[in-house]
């Protein structure tokens, strides 16, 4: 009888020891493992949120920049602010920053502070065509120098107006520039340089309009707003319209003041030009309980 009591007591003690071991392991693992997971997840959410806010604010600043002076002065959104208005623009950016934070704190904890830095912004001129005729100038002179640092270049071309089937029609700088080439059979190609095909459409899927948008040397080609290829400008390329034929559309080209701007401003082939800030710089800071992110954002030049 004594032997059975001892056995059962031994079994009970073993069970208690096993249970205590399990308890201890659970407490230890909870302390070491879960906290790291939760912290890493919170940090990654903060980083993603910061990326999203940076992209959203940059889009909004672009909208503000395009509309601030040009709608009243030129009648359409253009990428410049008048040299006489940087302080007013600075006020509006500060106001936007305050309004953004007021709205975002309704459902979050992030605080935004963005200010306009006039001393680091780039001045220059904007050339554009949006007249009733919409025909592109032919070999207009003097040329505008475009290179990888050109803030902004935009073309919107009617695809059906590119009609020459035997040779390249509508070129921006022959040979090394951008060309729209209507092929025999009705296909249309957008090329860069002499042979690099960026986009092409068959006769049955031609878009109505083709957009080419380049900021600081890189950009994309779109057909009816849908992206189809990327474009890159490496060298200094004088912009002249070579062989535009009967192609119609609009263009906006902004250049900084280090390029050949002075003599071109009053050139009637380029329609009206507007001088001012063409590539603004913003100081951006976003802060939430987990992190603080500061960066200088040049609107057409990427972060620095």
């Amino acid at each position, binding site marked *: 009888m004594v032997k059975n*009591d001892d056995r059962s*007591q031994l079994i*009970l*003690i073993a*069970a*208690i020891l*096993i*249970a*205590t071991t*399990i*308890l201890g392991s*659970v*407490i230890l*693992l*909870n302390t070491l493992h879960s906290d790291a997971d939760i912290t890493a*997840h919170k940090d990654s*959410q903060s980083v*993603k949120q910061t990326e*999203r806010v940076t*992209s*959203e604010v940059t*889009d*909004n600043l672009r*909208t*503000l920049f395009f*509309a*601030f002076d040009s*709608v*009243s002065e030129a009648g359409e959104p253009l990428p410049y602010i008048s040299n006489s208005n940087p302080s*007013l623009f600075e006020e*509006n950016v500060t*106001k*936007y920053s305050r*309004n*953004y934070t*007021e*709205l*975002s704190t*309704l*459902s*979050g904890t992030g605080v935004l502070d963005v200010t306009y830095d006039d001393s680091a912004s780039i001045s220059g001129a904007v050339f554009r065509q949006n007249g009733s005729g919409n025909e592109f100038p032919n070999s207009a002179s003097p040329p505008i120098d475009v290179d990888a640092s050109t803030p902004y270049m935009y073309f919107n071309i009617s695809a059906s107006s590119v009609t020459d089937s035997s040779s390249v029609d509508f070129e921006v700088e022959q040979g090394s520039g951008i060309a729209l080439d209507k092929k025999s059979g009705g296909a249309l190609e957008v090329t860069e340089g002499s042979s690099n095909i960026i986009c092409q459409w068959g006769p049955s899927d031609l878009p109505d309009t083709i957009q080419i948008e380049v900021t600081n040397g890189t950009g994309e080609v779109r057909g009816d*707003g849908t992206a189809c290829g990327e474009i890159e400008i490496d060298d200094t390329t004088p912009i002249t319209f070579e062989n535009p034929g009967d192609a119609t559309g609009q263009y906006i080209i902004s250049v900084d003041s280090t390029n050949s701007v002075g003599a071109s401003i009053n050139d009637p082939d380029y329609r009206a030009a507007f001088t001012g800030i063409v590539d603004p710089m913003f100081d951006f800071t976003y802060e939430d309980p987990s992190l603080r992110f500061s960066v200088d954002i040049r609107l057409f030049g990427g972060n620095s």
Partner: protein
Amino acid sequence: MSGDRGQAYTLEGVIGAIVIASALVLGIQAVNIEPWTDDGPEQGDELRAQVTDTLEIAQDQNALKPALLCLGGTDQSTPHPNILATSPDVTRLSAILNDTLDDASYTVYLNYKNTSVSPPVFNQTVIGQEGESTGSSVVVTRQIIMLDSDPVYDYNNRNCQRTDEELQDLPIDSVYLTDNSKSETYAIVQMRVVAW
């Protein structure tokens, strides 16, 4: 003497049972079953990314403003409740949301500052039907700058048609936004999408 031993054995057994039961309970709680029950913070990440990208695409394609300025809602001054209706899609925004979030349910709110009163207040408008979340939900916001020159749209026969008017042309009481800037900026609207 045997009575004393019995009491000691009983006490030992009770304490042992408590320790074993506690270990079982805590051990089972330590197992994370959220991945199997489609619950937990990681499950919302994918939906949040999807909604964020959808709103960015909608803005890139200029689909947000034509919907937010298609008036005809409460007092005819807020966006019409049908701007997110589908079958057929009333606006480009409803088409984008319907195509990309077809596996999720969502409610869209607009938050904006009313500066016509003192002190200014923040108003919220829900567009269309306000759904009720059936599980863990995500909230994604996007702010849009409305300009004086933005065109206004009129809801007519399940279609938002562009009018000749601009936002700056509308009388104060006929639009839910207030012009709080002397510059080309009219107001800032926050679109808040709650998805589940």
